[in-house]
């Protein structure tokens, strides 16, 4: 098991390098020059050449990437061409917001999906099942931004501003700047709608998956055996069936990380949240190479690490799965 984890951890390096290199190449092929935006009215050929030299943009692309990599190993993520701020600092300021959003949205998804999936499977072809599957079908068909708009209409407009429509308040002790709004309740009020908007689609998908795998598992012989030996319905479902039915669900949750990152960009844009998603999209649109690299690095790292965690969760859920 230890060898397997070590091998997987080592595999993270080439994957992250591959993704960051491809992003590096792609961003360099984007039409437009960030130096033009940087200099604005002060743009002259001479100033542009000077700026390109300062930021190393006059070197071959591979050399630029190796320089970026060399600095990264030393903990230097580079400096934003446009804002002049260190990329690592910006990422660290924004990462907690997005992490909170993603973790809470997955929480929302699980709170809805686990009971709905179990009830759907245990009461197959009853009204409870039809309701669960119909609501799930509606859920998978709602894009995050429309779910967000509906929530805005209900909680921000309909209930006379019960929840704020934009902005952010940090959790106590997490304020990354000199001055920022800090309050536990305020944070909850600000994160609730975005987390539901992002989580609702995932909840629907997981409900469908969990229902299908529960249906398969509850028909297996070991579940019949568990019932035959007199176990109550609760331990049969929660201890024997659910644990095994969760395996495909966990896989899909891992695969959903890519969608969650995209969803975070959309939801953060809609609710004007100062997270990594808005940071990434702003950087990509502004062609701020260093910031985009920072965003790609975090995204790629999160992507591979979560997939590793998912793989390792299998052996916890099903002890028959052993990694050598």
């Amino acid at each position, binding site marked *: 098991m230890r060898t397997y984890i070590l091998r997987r951890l080592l595999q993270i390096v080439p994957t992250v390098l591959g993704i960051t290199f*491809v992003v590096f190449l792609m961003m360099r092929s984007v039409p437009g020059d960030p130096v033009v935006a940087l200099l604005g009215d002060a743009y002259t050929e001479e100033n542009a050449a000077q700026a390109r030299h300062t930021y190393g943009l006059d070197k071959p692309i591979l050399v630029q990437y190796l320089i970026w990599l060399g600095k990264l190993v030393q903990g230097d993520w580079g400096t934003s061409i446009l804002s002049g701020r260190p990329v690592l600092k910006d990422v660290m300021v924004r990462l907690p917001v997005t992490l909170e959003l993603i973790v809470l949205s997955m929480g929302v998804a699980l709170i809805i999906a686990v009971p709905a999936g179990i009830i759907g499977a245990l009461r197959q072809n009853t009204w409870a099942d039809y309701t669960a599957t119909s609501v799930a*079908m509606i859920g998978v068909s709602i894009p995050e931004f429309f779910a967000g708009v509906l929530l*805005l209409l209900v909680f921000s407009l309909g209930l006379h501003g019960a929840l704020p429509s934009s902005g952010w308040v940090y959790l106590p002790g997490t304020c990354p700047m000199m001055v920022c709004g800090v309050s536990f309740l305020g944070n909850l009020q600000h994160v609730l709608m975005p987390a539901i908007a992002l989580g609702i689609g995932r909840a629907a998908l997981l409900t469908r998956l969990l229902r299908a795998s529960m249906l398969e598992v509850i028909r297996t012989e070991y579940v019949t055996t568990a019932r035959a030996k007199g176990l109550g319905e609760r331990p049969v479902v929660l201890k024997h069936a659910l644990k095994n039915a969760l395996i495909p669900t966990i896989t899909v949750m891992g695969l959903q990380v890519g969608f969650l990152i995209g969803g975070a960009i959309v939801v953060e844009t809609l609710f004007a949240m100062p997270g990594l998603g808005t940071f990434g999209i702003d950087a990509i649109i502004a*062609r701020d190479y260093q910031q985009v690299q920072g965003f790609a690095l975090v995204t790629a790292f999160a992507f591979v690490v979560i997939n590793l965690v998912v793989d390792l969760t299998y052996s916890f859920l099903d002890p028959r799965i052993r990694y050598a």
Partner: protein
Amino acid sequence: MSTLREVELRPVGELVLEPRTASRSEAPLEQALRRLWRNKTALVGAAIAGLLILVAIFADVLAPQNPIASDQTHTFERPSRDYPLGTDQLGRDMLSRIVHGSRISLAVGVSSVLFALFIGVPLGMIAGFYGGRVDTVVMRLMDLILAFPIYLLAIILMIIFTPTAGLIGTIKVVGAIAIVRIPIYARLVRGSVLSIKEKEYIEACRALGVRDPSVLLHHILPNCLAPIIVTTTLGIATSIIVEATLSFLGLGTQPPTPSWGWDLKANVAFIHENPWLSLFPGLAIFVTVLGFNLFGDGLRDALDPRLK
């Protein structure tokens, strides 16, 4: 049961060739169609999708006004008889914009999936059939695309392509979404080909001297069709969402071309005073995606009832 009764009630001596329910000799396709026909939710999905396709085709006739013509004297009109879905900040008729917006959503949804299918399916077939180095090269390339979070790749591709308006702008969005979806088909088909190529009838084909392209096209492809059809139908729904998301982020087809995602984003700013402006484009996206999802689910159940 009804068929049994019908058969029994016939006069003795009358020739009974084919009872109307599924017989053992019924082709798998007929059985699938029969199952699909019985699935009411799938039919509702097909009806929604079909209706929207008709709306997109006849948008010029159905839209009461020009979707891009602004009228500063009628900005932010509430839904009324003249403007059934109101007007936006430029005085453009929302109903006309939504009717015309269906063209972008459906065109991008369908074309991007077909584009991905026509590249991904042959790649997956070749990789699975020939194996070895071809397989390694093709599948590592696909893995590289799959290693990216889907939206990150689509967003960067759109920045490279530079979003524009009109047909060219739409083609760019189709290209970006198709590239992201190619590996899905390549992986799906490769997996099917790997198992099918070991079957005895393929060995028989080869022994008879049937050439590889013919084996692939006439003997292997037909056996991979069921998952391809299901993935395509459900893929249209996903592509419509990705297109709307790109438009929402300002990276889809650019204005003045009507686009549901763009209209929703543009009108969120006025949500406090004019909530319907964001509501209607969102509802249009939702209903379209729901239609294709319902139909895709029904198709999957019909083509592979074990998955139900």
